[in-house]
């Protein structure tokens, strides 16, 4: 089936540094999402993105977070600067305009902030 890729699979970074998480969504999808999951717990919505703009963001989407998809390339989540509490697994998802609620998830990026 359709696949969402995420690069890198793991990232270890010092607190205060910048990190960029990359997502390669399903090719014809236009809705993109980032979720945060701590220690295999609940999947928490961060932000969604459509037509080059953020549609909604949660209170977890701090000012240090930003998303973009320049020129149809990777859909990225940037955290600058990182904090200890940003350590989590970040999942990207995408869905089509005709089937918005069938989201395809990537395998996740495991971020550890030291």
């Amino acid at each position, binding site marked *: 089936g359709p696949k*969402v890729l995420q690069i890198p699979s793991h990232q270890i970074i010092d607190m205060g540094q910048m990190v960029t998480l990359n997502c390669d969504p399903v090719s014809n999808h236009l809705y993109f*999402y980032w*979720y945060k999951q701590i220690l*295999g*717990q*609940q*999947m*928490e*919505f961060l932000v*969604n993105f*459509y037509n080059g703009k953020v*549609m*909604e963001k949660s209170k977890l989407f701090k000012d240090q977070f930003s998303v973009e998809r320049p020129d149809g390339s990777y859909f990225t989540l940037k955290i600058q600067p990182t904090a200890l509490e940003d350590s989590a697994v970040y*999942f990207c*998802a995408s869905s089509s305009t005709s089937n*918005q*609620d*069938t*989201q*395809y*998830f*990537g*395998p*996740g990026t495991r971020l550890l902030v030291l």
Partner: protein
Amino acid sequence: TQTVSQSDAHVTVFEGDSVELRCNYSYGGSIYLSWYIQHHGRGLQFLLKYYSGNPVVQGVNGFEAEFSKSDSSFHLRKASVHWSDSAVYFCAVRPNSGTYQRFGTGTKLQVVP
């Protein structure tokens, strides 16, 4: 308060048994309901969804779910589980007026051989 809750954190059954994983919601208005499965260390995979029509929806791998407006529920069922069904199952709700799904806390299903 709008919530989606999965009351069972862990469920253990024997291979071949039936299982029901519970999901209850407290949203008004029209909603989309979905179930996802997450195997250890992997992303979520879509199982099935409901918006309207027949309250019993069929999904992949023999899973089905039944919507009940009176009970505010969307429980997931499987008649005969396999060891490979061991995973965490997430229920999700999207209000028709919203743009993203809210996930429950998940139910970890363990299938014992």
